[in-house]
């Protein structure tokens, strides 16, 4: 720890962080600072001034975040902090709730997802979603995966559809386990297999973004490890956003982490920074298990 060199003057200063520009915390007053540009991969989703109301109750307050493409961003925070609500803004799932009102702008590749010209059905093909509980259709394994490409007209014939089904199941790491029983019901698979089946279903329509809302909370550790490995492989092609209650999972799978608390985005930044040196005391208290 005693460096060489005789000409240096003595100084104490913090090391420059590589990504200090992309590590932002809200100010003490709770005001959101505008996120600085994400370094490295370019921004896939840019959200600004997002406020969400369920009737009179406001669920999200002025959320602003940049989500880079080809990487995993995790949302953490206590129950009811708004992380799932924000996730659902990104593919307009909140449209299905009559009393829900969203203000602000969410841009995907610079295009406002709430624009009137955007068809939510097409949007949801571009922004796939995986839920907490595996929800395969009550159909065969093959049909579960083939359904999306067929209704979106992505395949011209049986051969092409077969190819999409096989490649999707392969990318979801499920092909070797189900290739000999493609016509059996998807609901007959184990929980972990079902979750990989719905991931295969999501990627079969060629999405750009995959949203995952606690995808492993109903799975055992081995099935969880397989999903995490899959997430790590998928991030080479997709922008992945994952909501998780497991801090360890956020630390393992994501490159960036955003911490939500009481409807506000408290802090977001590189995952290793958030888990070694969070800026906001609320983040610190939450991730170290001191909340309350």
């Amino acid at each position, binding site marked *: *720890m*005693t*460096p*060489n*060199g*005789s000409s*240096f*003057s*003595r*100084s*104490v*200063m*913090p*090391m420059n962080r590589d990504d200090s520009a992309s590590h932002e915390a809200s100010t003490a007053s709770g005001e959101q600072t505008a996120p600085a540009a994400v370094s490295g991969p370019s921004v896939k989703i840019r959200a600004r001034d997002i406020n969400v109301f369920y009737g009179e109750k406001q669920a999200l307050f002025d959320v602003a975040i940049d989500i880079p493409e080809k990487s995993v961003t995790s949302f953490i925070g206590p129950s009811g902090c708004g992380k799932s609500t924000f996730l659902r803004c990104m593919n307009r799932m909140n449209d299905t709730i009559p009393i829900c009102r969203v203000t602000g702008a969410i841009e995907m590749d610079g295009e406002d997802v709430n624009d009137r010209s955007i068809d939510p059905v097409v949007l949801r093909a571009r922004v796939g979603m995986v839920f907490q509980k595996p929800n395969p259709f009550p159909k065969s394994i093959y049909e579960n995966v083939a359904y999306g490409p067929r209704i979106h007209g992505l395949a011209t014939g049986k051969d092409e559809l077969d190819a999409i089904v096989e490649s999707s199941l392969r990318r979801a790491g499920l092909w070797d386990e189900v290739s000999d029983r493609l016509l059996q019901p998807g609901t007959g698979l184990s929980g972990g297999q079902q979750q990989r089946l719905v991931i295969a279903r999501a990627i079969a329509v060629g999405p750009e973004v995959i949203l995952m809302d606690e995808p492993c909370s109903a799975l055992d550790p081995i099935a969880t490890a397989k999903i995490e490995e899959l997430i790590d492989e998928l991030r080479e092609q997709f922008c992945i956003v994952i909501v998780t209650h497991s*801090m*360890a999972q956020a*630390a393992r799978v994501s490159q960036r982490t955003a911490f939500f608390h009481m409807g506000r985005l408290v802090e977001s930044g590189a995952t290793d920074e958030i*888990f*070694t*040196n*969070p800026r906001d005391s609320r*983040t*610190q*208290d939450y*991730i*170290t*298990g*001191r*909340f*309350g």
Partner: protein
Amino acid sequence: MTEHTVKAYGDELNHLTAEVARMGGLAEAQVVDSIVCITRRDVNLAQNIIAHDDKLDQMQIDIERKAIKLIALRQPVAQDLRRTVAAMKISSNLERCGDLAKNIAKRALVVSEAEPMTPLTRSIERMGHLVTGRLKDVLDAYTSSNVTRAVGVWWRDEEVDEHYNSLFRELLTYMMADPRTITSCAHLLFVAKNLERIGDHATNIAEIIHFELTGEDMITHRPKHSDIES
């Protein structure tokens, strides 16, 4: 600092810090005593120091095991992780301080057999006080989680280096004047070097405390005295 929701976890962390503080107290005492053996030619005290070193080694192993267990069972993050790792690193620095104190005590046994060289041992004593003062301050900074105090210790490293330099020249003068003093002087030179190293460990500990408390590294542009080797 808010309490941990899981109390046992918080207790384990506090316990780890307390162990390091206790080990620090013992290491500091060993260093203080080692200087006394040199200045007072106290052979019994020197033998005591040598015998006590095992205790420090054992404490270091103990702290390391506890920290590893805490990492395995609690998966600490953020400040808790920094605190756990800091405990491990500080304990290993303290263990080295203990080894150096033991080495000083061994040399005290040899030096005690030769003619007293009071001016030299006075210089060793002054340097020793400076070093033990820094060790004490850095351990206080640790127990009180006081980053300013830790940085203060870090800044004062130069004084120790200067002391070492002047002692080095003083010893050379003695050896050139009277070759019969070479054996003792050579031992005293090692004693001075050991003290200087203990000072470096205090600096290391200051840096570890700085990282533990702030999450930031200190960039250490420390001027080196190239004339030391001349």
